[in-house]
């Protein structure tokens, strides 16, 4: 009897021991892995997307903001009518049905992305179909209230290799990191219904929204510039063109337009060659607009004066080449001021010869040619200047009237700003200030890169440029009573080592009011067919813009 009781006792002890071992295994040895599984079950990690910073004009109005959009996804396990869903999505979202069908045929997928950044209106239309297995997730997309205005300056937001939003070109590209901000994350315990358990784990790393950019851009001037440029391109049958308006005292870009342009909201529907901003990434020979810079250099060095006489009696021979005036007319004894009025190439060769060659090259480099301007726009490039030992007599001569030397429009207008503002080369800037998430503002101070000319030289050149407008080829174009300083330019386009006789780049650079300029503008027109001359294409565009800017900026004839 006692023996049997003993066996029963041992049996039950054995069972207890087994239970203890199992409990030890689950509660001690496996505690970490089981704890992890439990945490995984109840702990949710919710990414908090940072809002991309806005881009605002100088008056605080919106150029680029964010709008709500949606990602469209399919949950294949929940779809009951596959054909209907493919047909609806293909039609509504303009997607090939074959690609949707191919994704759905993969039975291992639980979650299939169909489209991103779909507009709210389109999503509401899709919801009306009540399709099972179709789901939507919040996203944001860029919205351009002014449509394609300032497209080259703004750039656009596309996707990078990781599928994340990234800015390309213009301000979106240059300031991408500041505009992106930093995503946050919310980790919290949640119950079976998805509600947070406040007494459990909760860790919130808030998102840091992107910074807002306030530009120098004046929307009214930008609008005027874009409409006049478009009108001009059509009227003169040109391939393209650009206009830059700058505040010469700060280097701030008040307006920048180029044609052909694109809509950054639907950039993928335009040819990619349109994305490039020709004002910072395309090169051209400036032609006669360059003469004002060479003249200023010679006056600044004390080699010539505005009233110095020059005998324009015929073409000049330089290194086996013949240099003529643009219209084959020679006026005999003229002043250097008249050299600019008549836009005399031979007169400019005379001026260039008064300057030492090294001094001539020094001025070109000091004025920023051959170097990036430092403007805050992505994809800026610069043509290279030949080294000094590759410059021959003919090169100095042709450079004096802006041929044989290449520049971007932004480099050219930045250089002329040194005349407009009394001698200082300013760094061009698009962004005036940056607004942080906490409301603080970081202002971009105007930057003087170098002092090129004395104030006296700048004043003299201003008067010479006023004379060039009043007495030159554009005298019938300017509004009566206004003093506008300017210079026309017509440069032949180099193709395969020689100049095309028919294709030109016509340009006009000018500023007003002359004593304290409120704006400086450069107009370039590529290959106009109505007339090759800057005085007949670019200059009229300049003056038609100026006529609208004067009352807007309250510039009167007495200024």
């Amino acid at each position, binding site marked *: 009897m006692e023996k049997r009781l003993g066996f029963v006792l041992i049996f039950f002890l054995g069972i207890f021991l087994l239970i203890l071992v199992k409990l030890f295994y689950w509660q001690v040895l496996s505690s970490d892995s089981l704890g992890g599984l439990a945490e995984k079950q109840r702990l949710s990690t919710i990414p908090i997307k940072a809002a991309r910073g806005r881009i605002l004009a100088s008056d605080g109005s919106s150029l680029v903001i964010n709008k709500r959009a949606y990602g469209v996804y399919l949950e294949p396990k929940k779809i009951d009518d596959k054909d209907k869903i493919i047909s609806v999505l293909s039609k509504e979202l303009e997607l090939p049905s074959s690609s949707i069908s191919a994704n759905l045929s993969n039975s291992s997928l639980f979650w299939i992305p169909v489209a991103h950044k779909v507009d709210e209106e389109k999503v509401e239309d899709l919801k009306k179909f009540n399709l099972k297995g179709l789901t939507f997730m919040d996203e944001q997309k860029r919205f351009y209230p002014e*449509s394609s205005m300032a497209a080259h300056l703004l750039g656009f937001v596309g996707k990078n290799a990781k599928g994340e939003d990234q800015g390309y070109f213009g301000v979106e590209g240059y300031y991408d990191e500041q505009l992106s901000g930093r995503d946050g994350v919310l980790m919290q315990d*949640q119950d079976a219904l998805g509600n947070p358990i*406040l007494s459990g784990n909760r860790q919130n790393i808030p998102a840091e929204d992107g910074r807002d950019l306030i530009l120098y851009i004046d929307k009214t001037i930008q609008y005027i510039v874009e409409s006049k440029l478009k009108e001009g391109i059509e009227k003169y049958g040109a391939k393209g063109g650009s206009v830059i308006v700058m505040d010469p005292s700060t280097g701030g870009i008040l307006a920048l337009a180029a044609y052909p342009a694109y809509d950054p909201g639907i950039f993928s529907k335009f040819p990619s060659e349109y994305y490039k901003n020709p004002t910072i990434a395309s090169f051209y020979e400036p032609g006669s607009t360059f003469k004002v810079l060479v003249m200023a250099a010679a006056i600044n060095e004390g080699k010539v004066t505005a009233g110095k006489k020059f005998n324009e009696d015929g073409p000049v021979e330089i290194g086996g080449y013949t240099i003529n005036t643009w219209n084959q007319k020679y006026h005999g004894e003229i002043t250097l001021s008249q050299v600019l009025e008549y836009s005399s190439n031979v007169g400019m060769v005379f001026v260039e010869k008064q300057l030492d060659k090294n001094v001539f090259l020094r001025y070109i480099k000091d004025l920023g040619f051959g170097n990036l301007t430092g403007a805050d726009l992505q994809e800026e490039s610069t043509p290279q200047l030949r080294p000094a030992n590759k410059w021959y007599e003919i090169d100095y001569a042709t450079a004096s009237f802006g041929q044989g030397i290449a520049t971007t429009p932004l480099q050219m207008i930045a250089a002329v700003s040194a005349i407009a503002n009394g001698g200082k080369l300013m760094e061009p800037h698009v962004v005036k200030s940056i607004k942080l998430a906490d409301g603080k503002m970081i202002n971009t101070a105007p930057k003087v890169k170098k002092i090129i000319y004395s104030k006296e030289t700048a004043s003299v050149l201003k008067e010479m440029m006023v004379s060039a407008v009043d007495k030159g080829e554009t005298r019938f174009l300017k509004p009566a009573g206004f003093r506008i300083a300017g210079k026309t330019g017509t440069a032949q386009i180099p193709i395969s080592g020689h100049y095309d006789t028919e294709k030109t780049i016509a340009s006009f650079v000018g500023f007003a009011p002359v004593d304290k300029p409120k704006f400086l503008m450069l107009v370039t027109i590529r290959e106009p067919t109505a007339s090759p001359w800057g005085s007949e294409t670019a200059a009229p565009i300049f003056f038609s813009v100026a006529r609208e800017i004067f009352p807007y900026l309250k510039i009167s004839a007495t200024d």
Partner: protein
Amino acid sequence: MFNTESKTLPVNIFLFLFLLILSAVQVAMLNKFSIIGAKLNSADQQIEKVEGENGLYSEKIASASSIASISQKAQNIGLSQTPALLSLDTPLPVAYDLRLNP
């Protein structure tokens, strides 16, 4: 001399009751926290909804106040594009001005 057993008993009873009360309070508070999550969720959804509406209004305001839109409306009601420029004065040259006002 002292009856320590009779003094200890009421203290023990007090401590036991105190522990019971604290446990009850803990259970009640945890219960309350467990349903506040639903309210927080609901509040978050409301905030998201209002933010969405704000975004929509910002978009509509930006569109309505766009320069293209205003220009079109101005044209429709007959406002002229550009005032004519009229000059009644002859301005002085810059270099002359500098001589007078160095």
